[in-house]
């Protein structure tokens, strides 16, 4: 036989009446309730949680230092170490963005500037934070490693206009990335 049928366990009458199991379950949940209320929940120290149960009461206590490296916060634009704008405004991110949050207006690079070889750079680059769903597709698709998901997760706006982030803001938030993208060097 190519397969072995699973042996179903034979339940005794006591098992089939459920009552014992239900009572056990009720005790278990009640224990959790009491432990949560007396602030003695299991693994509480690991989380260093200050609230009831395992909870970190949010604005007072934050998870920040435990954010994993791969955390996908708000997308930002980055500069290279040579402070070159990495984005070449290929608009791939604009096309891939499922929420259509990105708008890129391509522009020309001043021929006199050291990174003239890349020819294009965004004239304008906006990300609409009301639309963005933090999927990270833009980061994935960018051929120039110019757009990265930051760790910023707390985007609380008091003004609607601030939700649409322009180029300056995005560069400011993104900062500088280590590691050279060499393909626009003069020597290449």
């Amino acid at each position, binding site marked *: 036989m190519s397969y072995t049928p699973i042996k179903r366990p034979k339940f005794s009458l006591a098992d089939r009446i459920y009552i014992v199991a239900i009572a056990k*379950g009720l005790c278990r*949940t*009640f224990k959790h309730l009491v432990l*949560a209320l007396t602030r003695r*929940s299991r693994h509480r120290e690991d989380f260093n949680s200050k609230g*009831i*149960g395992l909870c970190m*009461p949010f604005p007072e206590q934050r998870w920040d230092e435990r954010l994993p490296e791969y955390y996908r916060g708000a997308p930002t634009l980055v500069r290279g170490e040579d402070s070159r704008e990495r984005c070449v405004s290929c608009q791939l991110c604009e096309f891939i963005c499922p929420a259509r949050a990105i708008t890129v207006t391509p522009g020309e690079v001043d021929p006199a500037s050291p990174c003239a070889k890349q020819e294009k750079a965004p004239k304008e680059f906006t990300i609409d934070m009301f639309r963005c769903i933090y999927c990270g597709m833009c980061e994935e698709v960018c051929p120039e490693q110019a757009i990265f998901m930051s760790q910023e997760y707390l985007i609380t706006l008091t003004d609607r206009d601030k939700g649409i982030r322009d180029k300056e803001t995005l560069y400011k938030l993104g900062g500088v990335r280590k590691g050279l993208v060499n393909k626009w060097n003069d020597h290449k």
Partner: protein
Amino acid sequence: MQFIIDCWNSVMGDPTWFYLITTIAKLALMFILLLLFVVLSVWIERRIAGWIQDRPGPNRTGIPIHLLQRFGSKEKQPLKKWLEYFGVPANSWIAKLCTWLRLDREIPLFGLIQPMADGAKLFLKQEMTPSYVRKGFFIAAPMFVLGPPLIAAAVLPFSSSVDTCYGAINMCVANLNIGVLWIFAFSGLSVYGLTLAGWASNSKFPFIGGLRATAQLISYEVAMGLSIIPLLMMFSTLNLQEIVQNQAENGWTLVPLWGEGLSLQRWVLLLPMCISFLIFVTSVFAEANRTPFDMAECETDLVGGYHTEYSSMKFASFFMGEYVAMVVGSALVITLFLGGWSIGLGADVCLADWAKAAAITGSDQAATCWQSILGCCAGWIVVLLQFVAFIVKLVAFVFFFVWVRWTLPRFRFDQVMKLSWLVFFEIAVINILLTAAILYFIQ
């Protein structure tokens, strides 16, 4: 003034008016009580769910203080100002306690008004009626869910009766002699709401949900009805007020520790009563569509069940109807099995005697002022105490409902039907015979 008192006396002296006025007052009281309890049980549900899952649940909803700023207060942190005003140093324990209670940010209500915030949110949502539904039934369905449990609650006694100078007031809205039947009739009616909602939505998942609800509610109605027959045989009345009165004098159904409850017969009867209790409570769970029997709306296989197509206040009425059913179900369980409003341990009889004695002393010519006041209030005090007992029991049982919900996983539909028809039905029938035998042979 004298004129108003005269008017009042003549109106209340007329039995018809007296009956009308007291009934309307009781009606309002019961209605408010139920709706408050719905709100409270939503809160209990969410808090307990949180605690059981090691989280706090909704504990933040309060009145934010920045609202005060909206209304023109310039001060950003009124707490600091108040502390300064009372001369409390900013680092004393009182200040710390206030900060811990988040008084600097809001007037805390420990999340108690979360259900109201939810209600307001639902109220403000867009009301969607899909174009493909059967309009009339679609609109009628939520009313059918919310209405019947509210009507059924009319026969639930929430306290004993009190003698006033105009006549006795019985503390249940309608003291019907067929109280139990009334409740069954009306709680059975709410199945129409679910079925109609499922059918009128004209969409497959609600339809399956509605069908399941019908099948389940009808089967559990049978088990439920049969399971309390032993109880009715024991009390030999269908009047809920009398049943509770009997329990107050002779021991609760499940706790026969005083009065006639100490007789051999009652103790032997405890066995069928416990069986009844188990079946009845389980059926109440099924009737109220609560986990582990929430087949009609199990979101994993039916999207949202019979109310998938509903939004805004219509959805809210389903939601509320469910909670009203739960509260009424709990009230019925405590009325039948746990003594309803009775305080227990024979205290009710003593209190009633005390009230009677106080009334007699109070009406005496030689009574002091204090005694006559006591004579007037004694009956009301007793009623109030019993009312508090009722509420405490109700809260405890609602807690039990919630506790079970967050403990047990959902049954499969065939298991639910099997449990009703192959297990509960048989056991309930045998239980009736058993009770009859005990009542006949053990005196």
